[in-house]
């Protein structure tokens, strides 16, 4: 769906932030992880068309992104910014959510329906008249997510979606990601919460100092502890516990862990 070849990028023309990135992104939900400053946000800004590659090529659905402007790609790729204050600018929550759909020329009735559906999904349907700047950080982030969902794009990219979210907010975001996957959309995220990655994403790409250090299925990547350490990443808590408990297979969720541990102990005790 997205193909990146020989991508290089520098902000100042001297030090490279991204260096020779070659990735094919398929339909699998994909998490991009790595240490602060590894180039993750820069990479997704290039995919979104907000930054132009220094050199190399990015194609989306077979088309070179350089051939269209960021505005023209807006109906295909939606992106939730890391800092909500960089994204929101309207006077009410509803206006903010409607801005994207109307801007990509969606019909007003459909835009409103999409906006209300998206606000319900993030739990802000009762705050349509609120000023976005009066919301707390968690709700601002959820509003940004709703604004992108309402655009109904083929690709949805999140930059740190879990910032400031409590348990309920996390569950809401997990459900949104599951629903997007069911709808056949490509979901990508940049994130530091490895428990969230383990639960929601099928593929993990590890960035380190502007390069791809590791790329593979989530269970594979989280067993590569030495490589992860180089990228300042620790495996999810449940994976660490599985390793400590001597489980033979990688468990990415609590349910998987409980099942695998019981199987292991039954085997050890000779109980069927």
């Amino acid at each position, binding site marked *: 769906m997205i193909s990146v070849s020989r991508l290089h990028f520098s*902000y100042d023309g001297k030090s490279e932030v991204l260096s020779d990135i070659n990735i094919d992104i398929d339909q699998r939900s994909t998490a991009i*992880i*790595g*240490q*602060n*400053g590894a180039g993750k*946000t820069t990479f997704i800004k290039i995919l979104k068309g907000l930054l132009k590659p220094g050199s190399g090529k990015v194609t989306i659905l077979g088309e070179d992104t350089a051939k269209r402007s960021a505005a023209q790609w807006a109906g295909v790729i939606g992106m939730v910014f*890391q*800092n909500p*204050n960089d994204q929101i600018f309207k006077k009410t929550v509803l206006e903010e959510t409607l801005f994207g759909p109307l801007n990509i020329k969606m019909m007003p009735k459909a835009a409103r329906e999409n906006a209300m559906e998206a606000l319900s999904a993030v739990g802000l349907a009762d705050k349509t008249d609120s000023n976005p700047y009066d919301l*707390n*950080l*968690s*709700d601002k982030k959820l509003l940004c997510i709703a604004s992108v969902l309402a655009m109904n794009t083929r690709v949805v990219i999140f930059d*740190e979606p879990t*910032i*400031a*979210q*409590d*348990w*309920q*907010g*996390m569950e809401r975001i997990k459900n949104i990601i599951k629903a997007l996957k069911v709808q056949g959309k490509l979901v990508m995220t940049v994130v*530091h*919460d*490895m*428990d969230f990655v383990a639960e929601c994403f099928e593929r993990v790409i590890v960035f380190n100092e502007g390069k791809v250090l590791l790329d593979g299925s989530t269970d594979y990547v989280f067993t590569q502890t030495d490589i992860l*350490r180089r*990228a*300042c*990443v*620790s495996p999810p*808590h*449940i994976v*660490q*516990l599985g390793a*400590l*408990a001597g489980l033979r297979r990688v468990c990415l969720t*609590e349910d998987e*862990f*409980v099942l695998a*541990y*019981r199987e292991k*102990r*039954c085997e050890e*005790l000779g*109980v069927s």
Partner: protein
Amino acid sequence: MMLDVRRINACGLNLEGCGVKKIIVEHLKYRYPQSTELALNDISFEAEEGEKIGFIGCNGSGKSTLCQALTGLVPHFYRGAYGGHVTVDGMEVMSSSISEIAVKVGIVFQNPFTQVTGAKETVYDEVAFGLENLGLPRGEIITRADAALKLLRIDRFKDQAPFSLSGGQMQRMAIAGMIAMRPRIIVLDEPTSQLDPQGSDEVYQALDDLSAQGLTVVLTEHKIEKVARYCDKILILQNGRSMAFDTPAQLFSAKNTEAWGVRPPVYTRVCRELLRPPAGVYPVTLAEAGEALANWEVIL
């Protein structure tokens, strides 16, 4: 001469540095202007010198407001209706100015973008800004700023513009600026929300080191595993009320914290599902859970 009974125990041993109350909150009530509901409703707790206290709870439960109450921003900046008493390092918040409290209590806000002054051109100058405002000698400013930048692993960015940093690097810069001020109490509102896992561990390690030196640390955090691992005590808030205040092990073993919108650490959850605890207390950390899985009776 009056004897300070807090510092001498029954055997006459000097307990200097132990058991000294750095934070005393008594029946604190607070309502924001133009709001009809109490944001904080009868909160009481105490923290000793060198203790690490975690505030947890759903968004809107009052965690950030309670942080502001420790720094004096509530009520002096936000105004509103205020009752009860908050004492920080012996200073009554209600009768002290924000600038007086700021010398003793440092705060790092939830969103680091809002903490950057915007007036300084480099990360170094940003970290040194608070020290300049304290009127410290130049040599002292340089020593403290250098140490803080190193501690937070951002010394290599010191000549960069603050707004050129990534979110995580900016969060470290905000913490460095606060630590450089050497307050007696530090308050951090979600200090590691934008940090990579190792960076997050390093910040907590730094907080551990600072608390070992006698600094009292108060933080809010949604990463329950981190709070359980690093904090001595946890205060659970719900709708502005204090629901529980205890050690992580006692709190997550004895209480149904889910009813207050707080899930126990994943280690506690899986051990509850799998094990019978010999003493009724479940593990809250990775190491404790590993030990329990190896030794406790399994529910098959």
